[in-house]
């Protein structure tokens, strides 16, 4: 499956899609990126007069690239693949400001009985670690 086809199959609306591109994807993992726009709605409130990307959004970005794009790649035959995050353990090391580009890499831990578990990390353009951890999700035909 091509990178473009995976992006087209992402189930998110534009205000909650945190994937701009996929650099590489194969049976053992994926690398993708996203640039946090200054216009993202959460910057107005997180924090007041001090926009910083919320950790939950960084986790979401890692899950969209590392679990969902990867899960779609591993399941090309599923028509309406839904991937529900079931567990995450993430350590944050740096903050992400508006307009920063993040690069997410995920590596397969296992994919068995419809459960996908990955090790994931997020870096900035200077190759500094922003966050790292493990994520798991269940892949189903529908919720």
């Amino acid at each position, binding site marked *: 499956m091509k990178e473009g086809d995976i992006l087209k199959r992402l189930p998110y609306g534009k205000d909650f899609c945190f994937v701009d591109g996929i650099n590489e994807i194969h049976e053992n993992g994926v690398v993708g990126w996203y640039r946090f726009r200054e216009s993202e709605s959460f910057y107005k409130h997180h924090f007041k007069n001090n926009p910083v990307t919320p950790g939950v959004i960084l986790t979401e970005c890692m899950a969209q690239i590392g679990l969902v794009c990867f899960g779609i790649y591993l399941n090309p035959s599923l028509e309406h693949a839904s991937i529900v995050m079931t567990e995450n353990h993430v350590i944050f090391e740096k903050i992400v400001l508006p307009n920063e580009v993040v690069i997410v890499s995920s590596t397969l831990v296992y994919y068995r*009985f419809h459960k996908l578990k990955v090790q994931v990390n997020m870096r900035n353009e200077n190759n500094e670690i922003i966050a790292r951890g493990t994520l798991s999700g*269940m892949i189903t035909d529908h919720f």
Partner: protein
Amino acid sequence: MTTQEINQKLLEIVKVYLPQDVTESSIKPESHLMQDLGINSAHLVDIVLDVEDTFDIMLDENDMQQMQRVEDATTVIQNKL
């Protein structure tokens, strides 16, 4: 391996995935893993994978579907050993 030994090892595996409000003493042979012990489908996969490692066996989709209650898991394991 005796049934008792299997059950003891199974208990060690299952207790890790119990929700906070379910105690270890609730684990009985007749307990349904999801309905009685509150284990979700994602953790059921973890239990199956831990069972594979602990007993050095391979389980498939069919085995997993059979593992509804603790005693079903014991039977599946016994049949693989």
